[in-house]
Structure formats: C-alpha cells, structure tokens
C-alpha cells in the first residue's frame, strides 16, 4: 500500500511543521511534518541522536513542540493533558527504568488501566491479557526493578499495553530481548495490529523492519529524510548510508539477484528467498 495515500486517510496523529529545542539549545526536531493513519504499522529509524525519541515523546504530549502543531486523535497536544492523550497513545520508553516504579509486576501493569477509571472487571481483564501476551504472568509478585533487562522491558511493554491505547509507540523495545522473545513481541504486535491498533516502532533492527513493518520514516539530524513504504526504503543504499542505516543481508541479496534477473521478487527472510528460488526454478522447468 502506498504510504502517502494511507496517511491521508483518517490520521490519528498529525504533525505540522514541528520544531523542538531542548534547554541548552539543541534543536532536536526541525520542521517535521507527518501523518499516521489508523491501523498503520510504521517504523521510525535513523542514526543515534537523529531525533527518534524526541519525536516519539511528541506523539503522546510528553514534549510539546517549540513551534508547529501536533494533533493526536484530533486534539492539539499543547492544549491537552498528558493523561488525556495517554488514552489515545501509549508510549514505551527506550529505557524501561524510567517507567517502572511500583513494588510488584502486577501492580505495575494495573497502574495504567486503574488510573483511567475503568470498571474493576475490565481492568482485570486488560491486566491479565497484557501479562499473558508478554509472558510475564509468572513474575506477577516480583519487584520490577529486581528483574533482568529483558523482563523489565516486557513489564514496561505490558503496562502500556494494559491501557489499550489506539496507538502503540515502542522505543527500541527489542533491546534486552533475545531472538525468541523479539520474535514473540513482533508476533504480538501483528495480532494487535490485526485488531486495529496503530503501531509505531522505533528500532535499529532492520531485519525486523523488513519483516514486519509497512512504512518507514527515516530521521536524520532532526528532519524526516524519507518516508516511504518498506520495500522502497531499502532500495537506495546511498540514501540509507546517509541516514546511518543498512539494509539487512537477505534484502540486499534479493535485490542483487533481481537486478541480474535471477529472481522476480524481493525477500525479507531466508525462507522467503528459498521460496522464490523454488518458484523460479519451477517456472523455468
């Protein structure tokens, strides 16, 4: 699907000419304009310090633009409380320790839905489902800060998930997770997405982007360097390099094989590439 066309449908998030400077004068966002439509799966990528986390904190009103406008579910973020915006956008911090403060895992996960004043039953259902999706039910009694990085990360994700946001923004959620856990998280995001949730994933893991995301927004020095659908994002290696990015090996290999006419389509995983080879051999027979 064309990213630009999708974004014109029903934007849940809209940034118009947003600039932002931290105290001390670092201009971390420079005239950023973008729209995210309901149900999109968007990756935000780019070099260290390019403004991804700063951008993410604008999506839920934690930071307010120095100039320009941020609309979240139609509400101007500069005039709406963070608590209200949190009903629309859930944000999982890059560092889970900035987010965890309760004495038990269950209490942590319950905090968000509880403060939103849902009924007791709804609240418990959301808490249980989030803990189940993140596979942390067995940790419910434990203190979050005593856990390994990977488990703290999962608790942080579950506690935001439990507020059942329309838009789920995750800032490098796979750091601290191992391969199996990252794959599980990505599968969970796919499920949530199929239920209509909008997913914004900030990550340095290009393999996950190639496999799971539809649209890629690349940040560079505070500006949007490009905003395209995923295949196109990985097609221009010079542009990627300027943005401190690299396409995953299989994506590059598939591109090379297509260029020499050996394959007719791209591939994002080794298995997809094998299937391509099987198909092409079948056709040539």
């Amino acid at each position, binding site marked *: 699907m064309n990213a630009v066309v999708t974004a014109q449908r029903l934007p849940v998030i809209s940034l118009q000419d947003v600039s932002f400077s931290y105290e001390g004068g670092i201009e971390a966002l420079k005239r950023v304009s973008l729209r995210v439509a309901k149900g999109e799966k968007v990756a935000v990528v780019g070099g*260290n*310090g390019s403004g991804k986390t700063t951008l993410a904190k604008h999506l839920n009103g934690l930071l307010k633009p120095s100039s320009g406008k941020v609309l979240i579910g139609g509400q101007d973020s500069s005039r709406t409380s963070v608590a209200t915006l949190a009903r629309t956008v859930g944000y999982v911090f890059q560092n889970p320790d900035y987010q965890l403060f309760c004495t038990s895992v269950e209490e942590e996960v319950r905090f968000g839905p509880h403060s939103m004043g849902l009924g007791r039953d709804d609240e418990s259902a959301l808490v249980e489902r989030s803990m189940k999706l993140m596979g942390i039910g067995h940790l419910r009694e434990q203190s979050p800060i005593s856990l390994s990085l990977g488990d703290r990360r999962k608790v942080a994700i579950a506690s935001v998930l439990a507020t059942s946001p329309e838009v789920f923004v995750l800032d490098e959620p796979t750091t601290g997770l191992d391969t199996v856990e990252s794959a599980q998280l990505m599968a969970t995001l796919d499920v949530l997405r199929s239920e209509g949730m909008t997913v914004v994933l900030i990550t*340095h893991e290009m393999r996950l982007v190639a496999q799971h995301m539809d649209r890629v927004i690349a940040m560079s020095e505070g500006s949007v360097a490009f905003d395209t659908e995923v295949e196109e994002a990985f097609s221009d290696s010079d542009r990627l*390099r300027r943005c401190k990015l690299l396409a995953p090996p299989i994506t590059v290999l598939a591109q090379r*094989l297509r260029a020499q006419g050996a394959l007719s389509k791209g591939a994002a995983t*080794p298995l997809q590439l094998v299937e391509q080879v099987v198909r092409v*051999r079948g056709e040539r027979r």
Partner: protein
Amino acid sequence: MRAFELTKTRVRYRGSDILALCDVSVGVDEGEIVLLLGSNNAGKSTFCRLLNGLVPHSIPAQVDGAVEVLGRDVSKTSVARLATLVGMVFQEPESQLFCMSVEEEVAFGPENIAIPRAEIISRVEWALGVVGLSGYNARPPSNLSGGEKQRLAIAAALSMRPRLLVLDEPAYALDPAGRTDLYALLRTLRERYGMTIIIAERDAEELTELCDRVILLRSGRVVADGAPSEVLSRIDEMVVAGVSPPQIAHLSALLADRFPGKTRPFFTMGGAEKEIADLVRTSGGDAP
C-alpha cells in the same frame, strides 16, 4: 602470551542454586577477537565479569577452577589492578555513567591511574573522535540519546587503552552504521595496539567477518568454539541455544535442505549470489 585462560571454571552466585557458568575451559591468545554468543541467561555477562574480577570480588559468588588474566591469578588480584589491564563496557551503559560531563567521564579512568594530564587530554579527544562524539565534551551524560550514551561508555573504556577489552553487548543501542563503525574500530585497535577483544552478543549478524573465533554459550556451558564460518553454520545448534543464525548462513542451510546435492555451502553475500544464480540457471529435474 595468553590474554586469559579459564580452566574448568564454574560460577555460582551467592544465594542462587543455578550454575551461571559450568565447567568452562577457554584459552584466548593476545590479539584475538572473540565473539561470545548466547541468548538470555546463557552466562555471557558472568564470563565478562570474571575477566575483570567483578565476579567474585564485587559480586559475591563461588568460583571454582582457575581464572588467569594476562598471567595473573584473578582470585589473588584486586579489581583496581585488573582495571589497568582489562577495559569493560557494561551491558547497560547508563549504569556505568556517573560524571557531570562527557569529558570527565572519559578522563575518569586514566586520571585514576595517574596518566599525565597532556596524555589524558589527547586520549579523551581520540576516544570521543573514534566513537563519533567529538564536540560533546561539556554535555551532561544524562542528556544524551540512548545510542550516544552507549558510545560514551565505549569511549570511557577505550581511553584506558586496555590490553584486554571486554564489551558486553556493545551494539545494544547503536545505529546500524554505528555498529559497522565499531567493528571496524575494534579491528584497528587490534592491529595498532595488539589489543585482545571479547564481544558478548546475542546476535552474530554483522559480526561474521570481524571475529577470529566464536564461542557459543548455552545455559552456562560452551557448546561450540571455533572459526565463525564453522560455528555460525551450525544452524540447529544456534537455534537450540536461542540465538538467531546470520541470515546468509541460514539461507545456505535452508537451500541445502531444499535442494540436496545441488548447492555448495556459502557464508558470504558474494558466495550466496553466485550459488543461487547457478541454481536458478540449472533449473529442471527438481523433486516437487
């Protein structure tokens, strides 16, 4: 000379009934670049902490078997003494940063071992330069982005010019170009200073060409130890150990399964390209 030698080493943290490392025997020569690969709880961080004496000197644990680093028995060498030989980048860099400015953070180590002022200044500039943080000198570390903090933690270890450099998941928060830059830097450090380098990671994707050797850990045990092209091609073993195989090596194995006898194993992008082009060109006669 040996950079370090673990002989039948076992580690059990105080209060735990799990062996974090179990009968690990590994010897590494000076100048080697070694990848320590394993999933969560495999024992990577424990292995790293043995090398700078943090285990057992600062984190109480029972350590059986010998641990020798640059000819010294770690059990009889202080953490302070080991810090002059072994540089460490910790897994969660934020926990490692405590100074008021980027510059102080990088100067901290060398100041503690009484390096002359002029030398410290030049090392700080060098270390900030190689990690891409030139000009960040006066910034408070707490205000850096995640990846910038990671880069600072690496610079702080480099300014000590250690003989043995241990990096516990250094790619953690780095952008993709930053990872390749780091690996190129590590190679230069080995060439220029003969540094021995140990990198713990749960993913080998971009490391296939950097390291001389890969040690695969699973539940505290060494399950494979050899050349990257050998260990990283053992796909089943990697999957059992919970780490994802490099994509190209994985592809090679999948193709060999799907087209038995028709492909030769490959490990590089170039090798893959040639092999698959041949496979497509010679279509015909496949079992369905």
